[in-house]
């Protein structure tokens, strides 16, 4: 029962949470924005020239365009800078009103409940490779290579669509990490949006180049949460005004550094130039949607507030059991990877930690010094940095590991330092008379350690070791930054994918809990089994010294 209690609490919390929202968020987004006087736009500022940070300031094409839209709506714009994996999910949790992050308009995303504005940019997916890699001449050449992408971007979808097998796809949270992977020879190519890729390569990756041609053209739009049609109408109205009066052309010239008439810009090339909206020359993917929106705007003849009435968003935070059911297999795969990561790390980290602990208490000064240095360096730096160093920096020293191996190594190196301190504390807590008794019987130091000190230490360090194992199980989520798909990463992908971030993250929380509780239980069982040995301490203390 004791083990079940936290689980029950979590479920109760989930239920309360789910029922609360049905009456809390009934108001329309546009009204809320007007009331607040603030429009919150989420973005991922790793995507020049659309959005990026320079000297603490958020800059870029999207940023200025968004600010102009805010002006049109008569409100201030507050930017929310998130990791891409969390950007779309923040709409559902109402952390933001709109997303502007170079988001491609796709049918899948629409079906997941995201509402798009009219297209404001025509983009396309293209391939980057190392300069001089003659194996890759055209997009089709990457099918049998290792390809990195930014997770859950249309770059990933495009790579999958042209037939790059799943197991050769390395998914990164940050586009730049994917490019580093290519530069370090770990991946051979990367698929992403042409304008962003071009700008990032120009700025930071001179050793990479683009493969000519575009895999697929894409329309970029502004995203809102489902049922916020009034807000989208207002945004479209603002967008069109900005396009018509020439502001769009000015921003385009400033940030994109390409004439509006390039091949990429196709259908938009005439927009804004003549000072009036011209129908796009080619069919946009989001056209039917576009015309519908236009009609709404036209019907209200400029009065944005007169848009079609929309039902309140009642389901924004409720639990979507269908999503959980559908994503369970994938979540279990992630949980399996998390368990394997944890298990292997403990398998390597525990003996390593013990060895470091023995060095730490050794009589040989050099060993002691080495152990102290190691422990202090590992404990004094973030695990995330250690993972980055092992995956991205070590290749420069010709120590090249796969993402999974890098994850195991980083976690083991990290855990070993903490486990070493646990063991040292345990060994030092054993009465010195134990070592003396063992040595006086003729055992050498290592024999005494092996047969007398360590068996007792192990029983004492079991509780802190369990804590470490639990911490490790949770910390293992950090290795997702080097494209290891464990539970948290799997969850992030489903969250971005399904449009039900709340549901998915709660499901992940429950799975983590289910993984850690048995561990706690197992240890309390073991401790009970060793009860007679623990009683010894009391009896010996009871005798007079």
């Amino acid at each position, binding site marked *: 029962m004791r083990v079940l209690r936290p689980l029950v609490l979590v479920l109760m919390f989930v239920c309360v949470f789910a029922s609360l929202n049905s009456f809390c968020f009934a108001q329309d987004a546009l009204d809320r924005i007007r009331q607040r006087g603030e429009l919150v736009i989420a973005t991922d500022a790793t995507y020049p020239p659309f959005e990026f940070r320079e000297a603490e300031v958020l800059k870029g094409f999207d940023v200025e365009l968004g600010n102009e839209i805010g002006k049109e709506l008569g409100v201030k714009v507050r930017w929310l800078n998130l990791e891409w994996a969390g950007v779309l999910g923040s709409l559902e949790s109402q952390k933001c009103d709109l997303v502007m992050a170079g988001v491609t308009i796709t049918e899948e995303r629409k079906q997941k409940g995201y509402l798009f504005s009219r297209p404001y940019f025509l983009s396309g997916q293209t391939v980057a490779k190392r300069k001089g890699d003659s194996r890759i001449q055209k997009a089709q050449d990457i099918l049998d290579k290792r390809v990195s992408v930014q997770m859950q971007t249309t770059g990933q979808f495009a790579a999958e669509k042209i037939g790059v097998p799943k197991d050769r796809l390395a998914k990164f949270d940050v586009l730049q990490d994917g490019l580093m992977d290519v530069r370090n020879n770990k991946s051979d190519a990367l698929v992403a949006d042409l304008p962003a890729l071009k700008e990032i390569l120009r700025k930071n990756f001179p050793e990479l180049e683009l493969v000519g041609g575009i895999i697929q053209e894409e329309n970029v739009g502004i995203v809102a949460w489902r049922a916020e049609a009034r807000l989208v109408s207002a945004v479209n109205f603002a967008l069109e005004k900005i396009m018509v009066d020439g502001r769009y052309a000015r921003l385009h010239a400033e940030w994109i550094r390409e004439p509006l008439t390039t091949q990429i810009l196709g259908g938009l090339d005439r927009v804004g130039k003549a000072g009036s909206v011209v129908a796009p020359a080619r069919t946009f993917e989001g056209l039917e949607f576009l015309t519908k929106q236009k009609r709404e705007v036209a019907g209200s003849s400029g009065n944005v507030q007169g848009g079609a009435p929309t039902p309140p968003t009642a389901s924004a935070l409720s639990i979507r059991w269908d999503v959980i059911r559908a994503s369970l297999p994938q979540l279990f795969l992630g949980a399996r990877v998390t368990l394997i990561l944890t298990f292997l790390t403990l398998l390597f980290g525990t003996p390593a930690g013990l060895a470091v602990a023995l060095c730490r208490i050794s009589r040989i000064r050099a060993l002691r010094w080495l152990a102290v240095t190691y422990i202090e360096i590992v404990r004094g730096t973030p695990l995330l940095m250690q993972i980055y160093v092992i995956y991205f920096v070590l290749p420069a020293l010709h120590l090249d590991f796969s993402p999974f191996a890098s994850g195991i190594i980083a976690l083991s190196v990290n855990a070993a330092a903490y486990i070493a301190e646990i063991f040292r504390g345990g060994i030092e807590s054993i009465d010195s008379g134990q070592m003396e008794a063992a040595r006086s*019987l003729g055992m050498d130091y290592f024999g005494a350690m092996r047969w007398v000190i360590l068996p007792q230490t192990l029983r004492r360090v079991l509780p802190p070791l369990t804590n470490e194992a639990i911490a490790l199980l949770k910390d293992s989520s950090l290795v997702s930054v080097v494209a290891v798909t464990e539970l948290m990463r799997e969850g992030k992908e489903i969250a971005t994918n399904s449009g039900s971030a709340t549901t998915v993250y709660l499901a992940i929380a429950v799975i983590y809990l289910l993984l850690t509780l048995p561990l706690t239980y197992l240890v309390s069982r073991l401790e009970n089994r060793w009860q007679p040995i623990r009683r010894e301490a009391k009896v010996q203390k009871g005798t*007079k010294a």
Partner: protein
Amino acid sequence: MTQILEIHQLEKSFGSLKVLEGIDLTVKEGEVVALIGASGSGKSTLLRCINRLEPPSAGRIRFMDAEVTPSNLNWVRKQIGMVFQRFNLFPHLTALENVALAPRKVLGVSAEVALREGRELLDRVQLSEKAQNYPGELSGGQQQRVAIARALAMNPRLLLFDEPTSALDPELVGEVLAVMRNLAREGRTMVVATHEMGFAKEVAHRVLFLDAGRILEQGTPEEIFSNPKEERTRTFLARILER
């Protein structure tokens, strides 16, 4: 009787504190030597120097035919059994496993033989029925008897006892002394640091009175207990026998 232990001008300091000074001592095979003296007089340190649990600061110790040095330490310790004031049994092992561990791991005796001999030894200290109990389940007197059996299991040439009854409740002292008396009767060579003057008087062949790190006086139990020459011996004995 052959000489088994010879200590020459032994000295031991902890930092600037001199604990032992100019100790000369010879122990013959089969001899029982009692070390008496106030707490802090150096009895324990002397015992611990003999098997180098404390490395001596100066002087020489010969055991059997060899000088005791860091290099032959494990060989020396195999031959010298030690019984501690606080028992120092291994709490994670049963009484029997405590006794059998060193023969198995140090002498390489098979588990079967080590356990059989362990049972015999426990029988000799009247604890055969406690063989499967953990130290935590035994009384202090029982624990100390297991500790003696553990020392005997290595079949040592010399037994060192470091105040073996000082940590015991008074009613438990007798059972431990009885076991030690039997060992003396068997002709075991023993050096015993003790506050039990009755035991020293009855069992020891020779009594050494330590004071401030020196052997102030030594002789047969009659000489020391009935007719001590030194004033300090007299005050020590008067004080301890008053209790």
